[in-house]
Every structure is written in C-alpha cells, then in structure tokens.
C-alpha cells in the first residue's frame, strides 16, 4: 500500500475540518495510507514569508524534517501549504548556504533536514491513480462545476513544473467522476486571499473575489470546486460577507467523497457558511438514480 505523511494544514483541520475528514475518507477508499505527524502551520507564504523569509524556510523545514526519518513524502491538501513546503524544499535543495543556515536553526531543537522528504499536492497523487479514482465512483453526481486551481499549486512554474496558463488536470479529475467543468471568464485569476491580502488588506481582497464570483455566477454552476483550503475559506466566507451570493463551495476531496458514496455529514458539507442544502438534495437524487 502506498503511504504518505499527511499535512492537513491549519484551515483544513481548525476551520473546515470536513476537508481533513473528507481527505481521510477518500484516500482510505483509494487504499492510500496517511500518517500523522506533529506538524505546525506550514507557515503561510503570505503573512510569514512576507515578514521574514529565513523564519519561513526554517519553520517549513521543520515540518519537512518530521517525516524524513520514515522516508515518506508529504501530501498537502492546500495550495498555500503546498506553495510554502514545495518552495522551501526546492530552494533548500538549490541553495547550500540557506540549507546550512536552516539546519543551524533546527539544531537548537536537535533536528535536521537533508532535503529528501518531498511535498506533493494531493491532485498529483490522484493523477497517478486515475483508474482507481474512476472505479471507486458509486454515485454519478452529474454536477456542473467551476473549478479553481489555486495560484501556488500552479506557479511559479519553474518550481512547480506545472502548466499555469492552460492547466487541465482538475478539469479531467472532476470528469472522472461524472462532473463537468464549465469554463468561465478569467478562471485562472487569483481568489484574492493570498499574500497576506485577506488579513492585511481585507477590502481589496473582497473586491478581487467579487469579480471572480460575478464571473462564476453567470454560468449557473452547482458548485465551485477547489484544491486549496485557503481558497475554500475565501470563497465561502466572502460570499457571506458580500451577502449577494450563494454558490456552494466544495474542496475536491469533498466532491470525491460524495461520488465515492460517503455520507455528506461525514464530509462536513454542513460546515460551510454558504448553505449546501440544495446541493445535498441533488446528491440524494443522484444516489437514488445510481442505486
């Protein structure tokens, strides 16, 4: 059985725990083992990297070092956590002076990092087991969805190795479980939460997400599907603040959990601020049809 160290991230465990749970259920269905470690916050590329990069590298490296002795790579479910851990991993492997400085810092608590344990975004794991994802489907949801990639999963591409202008992976993954990814204007633009803007410049953050939500609303989708707990929080909380939107927001693992037949209560669908009541009704209908 494949196994990864599981990095749920602050938002996935402390704000929207349905995302942490859905991930556990989905990867259990896929026969992928997830192991827990005493992780801290990633820490955030916005607030912490922008305040002091050396601290960002050091705290990130402590997280990477935890699973290294077990030879496990680290699975993240948030583009923010992925952005941090993947950048830290990449930079430390290319900058010996920085690696030495970080290890000097880690040595104060008897830890070290060699650069081996590597972060991996969960969608890349799904990509490597498409047949299993497809065969695990129990319910044909048939949803029309607006997918959101999350900037730090795609960019910068010289670090991530992704195709940031024309990504297709997420569109294909929702297709594997019978959902349709609907194109919408400026679908790849930022959700407006990152870079410390959500916390430090909240009015601007709301303006950016409003433009995005306006574009999504025109397409009359069943849900917005994301692969980032931080974007998830921005999409859900902003709709409540803006008052004029009610588009359900699902993390991809919650959508997969529904398609794999897990109970919506266990996937934490009721924990969003935007009501998922209509969506749950559609799931019940789809469940009847598939039965």
């Amino acid at each position, binding site marked *: 059985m494949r196994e990864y160290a599981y990095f749920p991230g602050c938002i996935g465990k402390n704000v929207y725990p349905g995302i942490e749970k859905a991930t556990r259920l989905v990867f259990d269905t896929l026969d992928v083992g997830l192991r827990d470690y005493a992780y801290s916050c990633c820490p*955030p590329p916005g607030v912490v990297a922008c305040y002091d990069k050396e601290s960002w590298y050091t705290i990130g490296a402590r997280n990477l070092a935890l699973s290294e002795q077990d030879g496990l790579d680290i699975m993240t479910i948030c583009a923010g956590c992925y952005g941090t851990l993947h950048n830290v991993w990449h930079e430390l492997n290319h900058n010996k002076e920085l690696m030495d400085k970080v290890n000097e*810092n880690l040595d*104060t608590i008897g830890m070290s990092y060699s650069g081996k344990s590597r972060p991996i975004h969960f969608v890349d794991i799904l990509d490597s087991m498409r047949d299993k994802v497809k065969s695990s489907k129990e319910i044909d949801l048939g949803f029309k969805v607006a997918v959101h990639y999350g900037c730090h999963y795609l960019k910068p591409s010289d670090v991530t190795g992704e195709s940031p202008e024309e990504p297709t992976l997420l569109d294909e993954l929702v297709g594997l479980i019978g959902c349709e990814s609907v194109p919408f204007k400026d679908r790849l633009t930022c959700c407006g939460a990152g870079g410390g*803007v959500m*916390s430090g410049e909240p009015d601007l953050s709301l303006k950016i997400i409003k433009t995005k939500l306006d574009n999504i609303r025109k397409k009359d989708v069943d849900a917005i599907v994301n692969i980032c707990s931080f974007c998830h929080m921005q999409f859900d909380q902003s709709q409540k603040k803006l008052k004029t939107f009610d588009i359900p927001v699902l993390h991809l693992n919650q959508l997969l959990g529904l398609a794999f037949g897990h109970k919506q209560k*266990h996937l934490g669908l009721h924990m969003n601020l935007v009501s998922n009541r209509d969506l749950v009704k559609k799931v019940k209908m789809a469940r009847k049809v598939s039965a």
Partner: protein
Amino acid sequence: MSKTMKEITERGNAYNCIQCGRCTGSCPSGRECSIRTRKLIHLAKMGEEVFAVPELWECTTCFTCQERCPKDVKTTDMIIEIRNIAVSENYFPTMSEVPKIIIKSLYDTGSGQPLSPEVSKMRSIIGLAKEPFDVGKNEKDLKDFQKLLDILPLMKEVAK
C-alpha cells in the same frame, strides 16, 4: 540573513526589465486598486525607498506577473523580499494588527488559524478527534517549537 535592496534587485533580475508592463497588465489586484507592478520594479531598480510604498502590500503573490515576464524578472519574489525590508523598517499593511495576531497564534498554538471550541465540537460530530494531531497536541513538541521560534527574526519583528 535578510537581503539588502541591491541583492534583491540583482538576484531578481530587475535590471533586465524593459518596462513593457506585462506585469501590470496581468495583475488581478491592479484591476481593483492602485498597485502597479511595473512602477514598483522601476522604483526598486532606481534605488528608491520602495519599501515605504503602501501598494507593496496589495500584491496577492499569485505569481502571474513573474510567470509572464518576458525578461525573467522575479517580480513576485522581489515584492516578498522587499516586504521583509518594509517590516524591518516598520512599514505594514493597512490592517497591520491582523498579521501580528496570526503570527502570535502560530507561536502560542503552532497554528496560524487556531482551533475554536465550536470547531472542536464540529470535529467530534464528524468523527475526528476533538483536537487535531499537531505540534500543539503534545507539550514537549510545542515547547521545542517555541524554542525554535525564539531564535528566529520573525518573532523580533512582531514583538516590536
């Protein structure tokens, strides 16, 4: 360890910049507010005190500008590093207290977004442990983590 403005502009390839403006044209924040990435890079290149410009904090670090730059200028990397200088010179975003609260929570609990009693209850309803397994779970882990943070520049900046 933090870089000087000269190091930031040199390593960020700022002198490659031909002021084409593709960065500004690609910016999702620039559509909604006054940040102009091209101008920030120009000010940095000219040795101006760009760290004091409030627009510096309007970048969401989405990396679209850096991705699209035809001259390989590391625009987003530079903005993040210039912010490090801004913080050391006491320039902060508009809601300067909020990032400090997040960093304080990181120190106190190990999480930038701490667990509330309400979410703890929700966790048990969906079959998760009331408290997640993380650095805050075990007292020794948290003490070690705080010992590490005590030697890092981050905490000194926040304590100011």
